[in-house]
């Protein structure tokens, strides 16, 4: 076991995968000599050479489209999109090409690739760097979407994503890259995709979060527990597509109440999907409307205003209390 930050765990996962499998290669902007703008790929070029750690031209669609071709022809590429806001440039290659190749070819071809990208607010980035865009890809059949919230999960989920035969979008919360350390096993292990994690058990309300809002949900849960003795069950969804609805439904059947916390804008978000599924599957268990604590339906604001925009423990705590006392 080692004590690592999330960024170190991610780097460790790539190193472990590259050592184990010569088909794994990494490509993206500034990921080679520079080691990535967050240093996620630091040292990999020195260890594995320029053929496996490829500094690409500055062209996001080019990175993803080339990775699709690499994956089709037997490689296991990890493509980095420097910041998630830049993924708009690649929407065709991600959603129409990578995600649909298996379907279009009736299983003849698969695209086993991982797209890594930092996202999420609270770190004062310029515009289009912090946006949470996971809902766009929940709406794209054929691709899986993974969003870790701690170093252990980050490594295990990334190794599982690399072993997966489908394209996986692996979204890394920037704010958590170096926010805390955690125990991370050496070598290879996997945290399965599509399985949520019940981080904290509780009886009064289910709080569902993923990526950067997991610590927010935990902080809110602690505060409502301290203030009013409210017992929250906190679920870290880990994987946005496919959603582990069973874990959510089991919990809501126990607590009768649910609050969803995500950074992405509210309209058409993953929270809306989860709410709909709770209604479909656990309506008679509900004792209060499902609440959502989210970013507002505006473009991500400038750095001086982002703290007002982001869901925090205070807003989340209020939503939990409103729901519990409905």
């Amino acid at each position, binding site marked *: 076991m080692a004590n690592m930050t999330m960024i170190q765990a991610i780097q460790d996962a790539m190193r472990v995968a590259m050592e184990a499998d010569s088909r794994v290669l990494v490509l993206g902007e500034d990921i080679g000599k520079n080691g990535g703008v967050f240093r996620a790929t630091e040292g990999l070029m020195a260890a594995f050479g320029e053929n496996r750690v490829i500094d690409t031209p500055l062209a996001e669609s080019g990175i993803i489209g080339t990775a699709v071709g690499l994956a089709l022809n037997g490689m296991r590429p990890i493509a980095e999109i420097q910041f998630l806001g830049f993924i708009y440039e690649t929407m*065709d290659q991600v959603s129409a090409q990578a995600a649909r190749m298996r379907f279009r070819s009736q299983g003849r071809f698969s695209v086993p690739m991982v797209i890594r990208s930092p996202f999420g607010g609270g770190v004062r980035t310029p515009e289009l760097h912090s946006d949470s865009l996971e809902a766009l890809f929940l709406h794209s059949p054929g691709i899986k979407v993974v969003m870790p919230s701690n170093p252990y999960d980050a490594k295990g989920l990334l190794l599982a994503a690399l072993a997966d035969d489908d394209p996986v979008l692996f979204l890394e919360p920037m704010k958590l890259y170096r926010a805390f350390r955690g125990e991370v096993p050496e070598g290879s292990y996997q945290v399965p995709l599509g399985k949520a994690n019940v981080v904290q058990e509780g009886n009064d309300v289910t709080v569902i979060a993923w990526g950067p809002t997991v610590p927010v949900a935990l902080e809110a849960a602690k505060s409502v527990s301290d203030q009013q003795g409210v017992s929250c069950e906190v679920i870290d969804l880990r994987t946005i597509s496919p959603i582990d609805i069973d874990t959510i439904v089991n919990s809501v059947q126990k607590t009768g109440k649910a609050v969803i916390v995500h950074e992405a804008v509210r309209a058409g978000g993953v929270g809306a999907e989860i709410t709909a599924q709770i209604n479909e599957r656990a309506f008679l268990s509900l004792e209060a409307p499902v609440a959502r604590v989210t970013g507002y339906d505006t473009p991500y604001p400038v750095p001086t205003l982002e703290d007002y925009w982001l869901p925090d423990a205070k807003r989340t705590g209020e939503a939990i209390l409103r729901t519990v006392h409905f």
Partner: protein
Amino acid sequence: MKTYTADFGVSMYQILAEDGSVRGDLPELSDDKLIEFYKWMLLTRLYDQRAFNLQRQGRIGTYAPFSGQEAAQIGSFAALKNTDWLATSYREMAGLIYHGLPMEHALLYSMGHPDGGKMPTNLNVLPVQIIIAGQVLHAVGAGLASKLRGESNIAVTYYGDGASSQGDVHEAMNFAAVYKAPVIFFCQNNHWAISVPVSKQMATPTIAQKAVAYGMEGIRVDGNDVLAVYSAMKYAADRARSGEGPTLIEAVTYRLGSHTTADDPTRYRNETELKEWQEKRDPLIRFRIFLENKGIWNEQQENEWREEAKQKIDAAVEKAESHPKAEPSSFFDHVYADLTGPLAEQKQDFVQRLNQGEGR
């Protein structure tokens, strides 16, 4: 201030003139091979006409005709190996059929059968691409993978003049040149992107000259001259296989028909231009005159082959039409490698409705 504009003086490579006379160095091809080229061009021309009629009869769906582009396709595919990677658009059916895609398989695609996208496993051919230029980058990645793994396969992508305007073509050419990937960019300039002529598509007089900006070799070839196309493609394929990197080939050709069966070219295209290409530059007529002048083809052979070709096409149509219908629930099966939980549930629900006669 020093500014630059360049007249790249790109000339068109040609072996056979429009009247079938020889103007350049003939490639080393046996008489049998030459006859084979012609037979494939004629077969695919007849296939194209038949497919168009099948659409009009409501027996297949929307179809994108390629008549006029047979030389560009047969000539270029002839320089490739079965193991090479091919990323094409929807208008390369002549080339793909020559390459080994059974005609009935090509029809399945137009019939809207899911098996249309499942290319034969002995060929490294990606499902035909609908998104203009979406496939071009895949060839760069596939070619690069072959290079990294030390294989001699190359990757070829086919696209049109309209696709040249897409950002992905720029990104792909740039990537391929930087990595010296074994890739051929084969652009069939058929002069029209639905209703927009190439002169309104781009401000450059040629597409081949774009190679200069990326640091790769470019060739402008008469796309209706099957021998020139073959020679150009062979040159590019040899370069790619020997590690010299990508080549851009602009094959200057013409779409004689509509963009698709849903399109009416008389709304935008002038009759004189069409006649000029139909009467003076048809790739089949030109090559047939060459073969006849060479004394290896005559009217009797022509008639016999037309008859034989029609029978082959009939058989393919019959085969396609008797292909087993797709199981409706199969659309759940190839979304992910393994059916995910939510999808498994939807499939179960769907199958249950189907069994109760409530499907659709």
